[in-house]
């Protein structure tokens, strides 16, 4: 990447309300030559700019093969993201990126894949699931384990139905609390670890979500015999520059924005689970 510069202008082509607080913006860079030059890896993120308000780091959920558009699923939780929630089709925003290092999707080929997410719908791994399902023959057994706090938080139900129908694919869903129409497990996602189907010595695990959940999942995978270097986590920290200069995203000696946000567990384990870092 060249010297850090100003954002590129992007237009909102489409806006989808996924749940009361989650929405997806489909963007296209207004400069056609910049859009055609733009490429990314699943797991990377962009800094999206709202005029006069500021920037936020948002992971890219679309498939890298979709060369015309760049999709971002955003949760309206803070000052900037709530501003983004009010935008409409045709509005213009700024975009810098892509930043960081993504998922080990090449290294995972021919391996079993275990994808674990928790909390609200987890956009960074949805891009991985989409990527693997579009190239299903390159990967061995596929396991998708998702936990949500309440069944009402569960989005993209039809996608999970589609993924469940893929060959050699197991989809395990859990809600801490569920309504009458929730057909899957009521309880913690960790209750379902025993139902995962993988060869610990030939598996790549990819996870994102709250660190407490990831910590329990890592312990389980380690106990099952998966090497630390084969367990990959997407970390979330305060990111302002995306280029490793502003210092806010430091995790021990790493800059999450440029050394991550996706890390193998062996690089995180000396601090992982400790508060204050």
């Amino acid at each position: 990447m060249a010297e850090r510069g100003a954002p590129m202008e992007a237009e909102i082509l489409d806006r989808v309300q996924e749940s009361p607080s989650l929405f997806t913006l489909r963007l296209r860079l207004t400069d056609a030559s910049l859009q055609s030059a733009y490429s990314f890896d699943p797991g990377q993120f962009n800094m999206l700019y709202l005029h006069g308000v500021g920037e936020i780091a948002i992971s890219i959920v679309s498939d890298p093969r979709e060369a015309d558009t760049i999709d971002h699923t955003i949760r309206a939780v803070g000052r900037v993201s709530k501003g983004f929630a009010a935008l409409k089709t045709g509005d213009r925003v700024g975009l810098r990126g892509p930043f960081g290092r993504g998922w080990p999707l090449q290294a995972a080929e021919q391996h079993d894949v275990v994808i674990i997410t928790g909390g609200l719908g987890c956009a960074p791994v949805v891009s991985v699931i989409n990527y693997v399902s579009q190239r299903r023959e390159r990967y061995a057994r596929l396991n998708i384990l998702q936990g949500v706090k309440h069944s009402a938080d569960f989005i993209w139900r039809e996608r999970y139905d589609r993924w469940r129908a893929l060959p050699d694919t197991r989809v395990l869903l859990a809600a801490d609390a569920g309504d009458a129409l929730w057909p899957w497990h009521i309880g913690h996602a960790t209750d379902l670890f025993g139902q995962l189907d993988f060869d610990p010595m030939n598996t790549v695990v990819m996870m994102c979500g709250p660190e407490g959940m990831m910590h329990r999942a890592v312990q389980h995978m380690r106990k099952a015999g998966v090497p630390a270097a084969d367990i990959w986590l997407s970390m979330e920290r305060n990111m302002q520059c995306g280029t490793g200069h502003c210092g806010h995203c430091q995790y021990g000696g790493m800059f999450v924005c440029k050394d991550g946000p996706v890390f193998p567990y062996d690089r995180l384990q000396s601090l992982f689970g400790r508060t204050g870092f």
Partner: protein
Amino acid sequence: MENVADCFLARPDLQQLFDALLARDYDVWGPVARDGSIVFESVESVDMLPVGLIDQQDPGAYRLQETGNERVFDWTNGPQALKPMVFRPEVTLWEVARDAAGGLRFREPARPAQKRAVVGVRACDLAALYIHDRHFLQGESPEPDYRAQRQRLFLVAVNCTRAGNQCFCASTGDGPQARYGYDLALTELEQGFLVHAHSDAGRELLSALPTRAATAAEVSDAEKSVRVAAEQQRALPSRDLRDALLERLDHPRWKETAERCLGCGNCTAVCPTCFCNQEMDQPSLDGGHSEHVRQWDSCFSPDHGYIHGLRLREDTAGQYRQWLTHKLATWHDQYGRSGCVGCGRCITWCPVGIDLVEEVQALLREDAHG
């Protein structure tokens, strides 16, 4: 001491150094006594230099004292290093205007190219500059404003012949003698200055000065006074405290120190290697235009680790531990060395006098461990 210079510039000729720099279109900055401390400012005449002044530094205290002698570089350092000149406290990264159709027009400001010479830079300041060069310039995305400011610098170093009470640069391997990253270096003697050139620009400038070859006695005097400055110093226990500190993340000392620490961030502001900065928008009142700026930030700010409703380090103990373990431990992972250059500023300018050297010694004391 191979770099102690071989030319001698008599004290009355020091003005010619400033004149030669001015003649080469440099904006010349040098040390000036202002508001009770030594700061770098624009200096055109040696009359503005802090003649006969030394700085008395103690934990939480900085005082200038008159010595009555003619020396101009017996002070050791002030609250600034080169940091505010290259990593400026506030910079506009880009501007954006919204047109009538809602389109956003982004523009990067021009980065001024005025050449600047700084006289009186210390070895610790040069070491810190080298660290900032690594941080801001040597990654995949160089920082444009830092690069613009950095490219125009001509540095006249001064080898320290007096150590301050808080100096420990010899123990970090960074001083008191300038060894790299400068154009000219001066060592102050009774009658004048030994001058050593370390770059092509430095050699060219040196050739314009009325120097003569230094005598063996002058060279030996200079070596001795720099050696004495090293011997006068206190010391960190080791240059590499990485594992020692990371093994002590649960040490009771963190909480004890937090009871004294005000969380003010003075240490990070005066530290010549602290690089954290925050980005924010400054929109115009009519909303049509906005500037995106970066400002110095501090890991002692409660929002430093903020993510969507969660502050990663709410308490002072966590903030102080983050600062010290980054500076002395995880900095090694990032830049292959510690982030401390032994200048002692964090000790002097701490309003409650928390002493980094003493904190490290307390953390390493085995009887308090675990």
